């Protein structure tokens, strides 16, 4: 790719970006959210057309008007959100659009055979007859990779491939990618996890604000150096967990049963306490009941049985409003769906849940001036950009949206903070900021329950860790006594341990 420019309105997403991909390499493309790496890759995949610049493949300049053009030239992309039909089998999904057929009839057995041999050739373990909906996330990702290979891809673009995987699945994926590299494939890894870059890639291109700021072999680059290049400034180190938890119980959960949307048990007899001055981490692969647990603790999902107390107030089965009143703050996992009203402005989003406060207006009225006056210092303190109470929340970057939620929730004066995936899809600068704010909360003597799929986040922040597997809290351990490997074993059910 030579000198690619691409603008969106006033924003230049790619400014004179050049990228050379050699065959048989794993090339990492890193940068914060909004650095322009997705734009670049969408251009390479034919989803976007550059304003200026050229794409050259095998010494020939090409024009990619649509993904089909890119696929034709051997470029395949595995999206972060899989594009699979859950009710079809693996073989059907892989061959979809390119089915082996005779006289318009689908040749199922031949499809199965082809997919089987393709999978074997590339060391991708998956049963072609299995229904995709029944597969684990890791297996679904293998299906996606197979799909691109089936279409003859020689260049494989993977967008944040490890975001949804367990540690073991990550290891499997890395093994497969190395094998594909051996066979001569070019792999582009879009990520912001620098440890993965170090572990897997041979070459790294770092982007910041639409430009390439570094392009070098990974060997000889430290993770810290990469991080600073990516963010453009040194990242402050986080202080290690130090405070000693107090004896006061801030959140108490006893024998809690919660059902999921289909009415099936999602949380089974959960019992635990969160003390003052303590961060308790809940680790687990997503979909093991954490979501239902958090929603129940926030009063958004009634429990079947059991008891919840917030700072000594019994809240079981009460409304979300009463949970707030008892001293809870909640940073929900799905920021665009639950956490924010994207089409409202920052000020309106900051008053969500306290729009009944007296100082925001007289009687039934809500004064926009007073809302803005309330919002401005919060926006400043939490460094939300742009710092404009009238800006729409939808226009913010993921990191700023998360800071906006943090600003609202951490300013409630709550004693119990429920933080679900507080840094998912957030750039490094914002991660550091949010982490230090959560630490501040703990050090101020509040209780924090941190639910995250990011093990490194759980391990850095937590004082105590629970592992959740299939609705059970299967393991409890002090943070300093464990590591990613051990937690991974419990998260995947390979070990069920003493509590």
């Amino acid at each position, binding site marked *: 790719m030579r000198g690619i420019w691409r603008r969106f309105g006033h924003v230049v997403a790619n400014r004179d970006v050049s990228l050379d991909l050699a065959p048989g390499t794993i090339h990492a493309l890193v940068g914060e959210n909004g650095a322009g790496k997705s734009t670049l890759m969408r251009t390479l995949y034919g989803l976007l057309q550059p304003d200026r610049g050229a794409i050259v493949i095998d010494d020939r300049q090409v024009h990619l008007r649509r993904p089909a053009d890119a696929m034709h030239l051997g470029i395949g992309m595995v999206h972060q959100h899989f594009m699979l039909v859950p009710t079809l089998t693996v073989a059907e999904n892989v061959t979809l659009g390119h089915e082996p057929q005779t006289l318009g009839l689908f040749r199922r057995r031949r499809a199965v055979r082809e997919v089987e041999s393709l999978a074997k050739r590339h060391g991708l373990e998956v049963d072609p007859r299995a229904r995709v909906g029944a597969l684990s996330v890791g297996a679904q990702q293998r299906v996606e990779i197979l799909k691109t290979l089936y279409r003859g891809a020689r260049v494989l673009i993977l967008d944040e491939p490890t975001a949804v995987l367990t540690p073991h699945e990550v290891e499997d994926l890395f093994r497969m990618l190395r094998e594909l590299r051996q066979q001569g494939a070019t792999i582009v890894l879009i990520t912001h996890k620098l440890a993965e870059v170090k572990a897997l890639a041979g070459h790294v291109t770092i982007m910041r604000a639409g430009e390439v700021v570094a392009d070098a072999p990974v060997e000889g680059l430290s993770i810290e150096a990469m991080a600073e290049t990516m963010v453009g400034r040194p990242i402050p180190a986080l202080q290690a967990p130090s405070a000693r938890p107090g004896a006061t119980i801030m959140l108490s959960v006893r024998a809690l049963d919660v059902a999921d949307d289909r009415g099936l048990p999602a949380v089974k007899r959960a019992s635990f306490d969160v003390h003052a001055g303590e961060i308790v981490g809940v680790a687990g692969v997503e979909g093991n009941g954490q979501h239902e647990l958090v929603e129940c603790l926030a009063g958004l999902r009634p429990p079947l049985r059991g008891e919840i107390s917030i700072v000594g107030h019994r809240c079981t089965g009460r409304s979300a409003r009463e949970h707030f009143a008892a001293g809870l703050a909640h940073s929900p996992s799905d920021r665009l769906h639950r956490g*924010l009203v994207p089409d*409202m402005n920052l000020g309106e989003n900051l008053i*969500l849940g306290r729009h009944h406060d007296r100082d925001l207006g007289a009687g039934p009225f809500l004064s926009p001036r007073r809302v803005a006056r309330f919002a401005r210092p919060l926006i400043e303190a939490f460094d939300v950009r742009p710092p404009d109470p009238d800006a729409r929340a939808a226009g913010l970057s993921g990191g700023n949206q998360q800071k906006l939620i943090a600003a609202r929730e951490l300013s409630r004066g709550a004693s119990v903070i429920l933080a679900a995936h507080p840094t998912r899809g957030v750039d490094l600068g914002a991660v550091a900021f949010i982490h230090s704010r959560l630490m501040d909360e703990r050090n101020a003597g509040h209780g924090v329950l941190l639910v995250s799929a990011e093990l490194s986040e759980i391990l850095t922040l937590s004082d105590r860790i629970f592992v959740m597997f299939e609705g059970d809290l299967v393991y409890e351990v002090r943070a300093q006594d464990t590591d990613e490997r051990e937690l991974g074993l419990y998260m995947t059910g390979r070990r069920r341990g003493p509590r």
Partner: protein
Amino acid sequence: MSTAPLAAGEPVSAGARDPRRLLLGVAAPLVAIVLALAAGAIFIVAIGQNPFAIYGLMIGESLGTGYGLGQTLFKATPLIFTGLAVALGFRAGLFNIGAEGQIYLGGFAAALIGSAFTGWPPALLLPACILAAAAAGGAWGAIPGLLKARFGAHEVINTIMMNFIAFALVSFVGRPLFEPATVRTADIGAGAALARLSDWLPALRGSPANMALVLALAVAALAGLLIFRTRFGYALRAVGLSAPAAAFGGISIGRTQALAMTLSGAIAGIGGVNFVLGYKHFFEMGFSGGTGFLGIAVALIGRNHPVGVVLAALFFGALSYGGLVINQQVPRELIDVLQGLVILFAISAQQVLERMSRRLA
């Protein structure tokens, strides 16, 4: 979301202070209207007429003379009410297709009270009639609202059905009350009549435009105040824009939506007074004549904003009176075609411009 096709691409909320976004928001309906008129011109040429002459005549007659302007205002008045009703529902994430039944019952209730207590003084009878109209329409909106809140029953289906029930109910309950051998009620008392605007503006002489227009503008102002400046309006918009986030903020979705439907119905109900108290001074079966349904188009073109709704209602009012004027040159159906085209283009233009505004952001 229950309001899939229409409300989906709609969110032009407060916070749209960015002038470019505002411009796009205004542009969509205007582009739609221009395109619809252009498409209508093809139709006019096809029947051998000059579109410029036809459109010129329409504009001249519906806006250029005092009488025509009065007719336009008269036709726009109920559309302001039904447009506001539908817009308020949209703001809460609800698609109220029941404005037709609500305005119909509102007019009926106003006529019942107005003709039953003919002896009351105006200061008592007039407010009583208006309140009766609001209550009847409100009740008709509350039923599907409560069904939605309590059982999750879809308001689109239920408001459509409530329309049929309203028509049937009036012809069943009304029959013994109607004047012999007619489908109208007795005249309302003089105290219930709304004054003609021509009493103050002689230029409008002869037209039926009446004080219901002033009432409509007042209701539009109140609706704007409610939506954008009150705690309830905040909750209502939060529910409409993102129900899960509203629930997160401790807002009761069911209660908010039930109340929004009741208010929506009440606003549509008051629309009935334009005809009953302001024009004929009795209720007549079939008087609503599609104003409730046209209210959906008004809300759509007006982008669910009270100011936009008033402007859109005036446009449709002019279109509807202009259609009567050009009756001799082109078939009256042209107006129905134009109305349909405007809606068609409005939906498409909105999607296109929405995409453009996303690129701006």
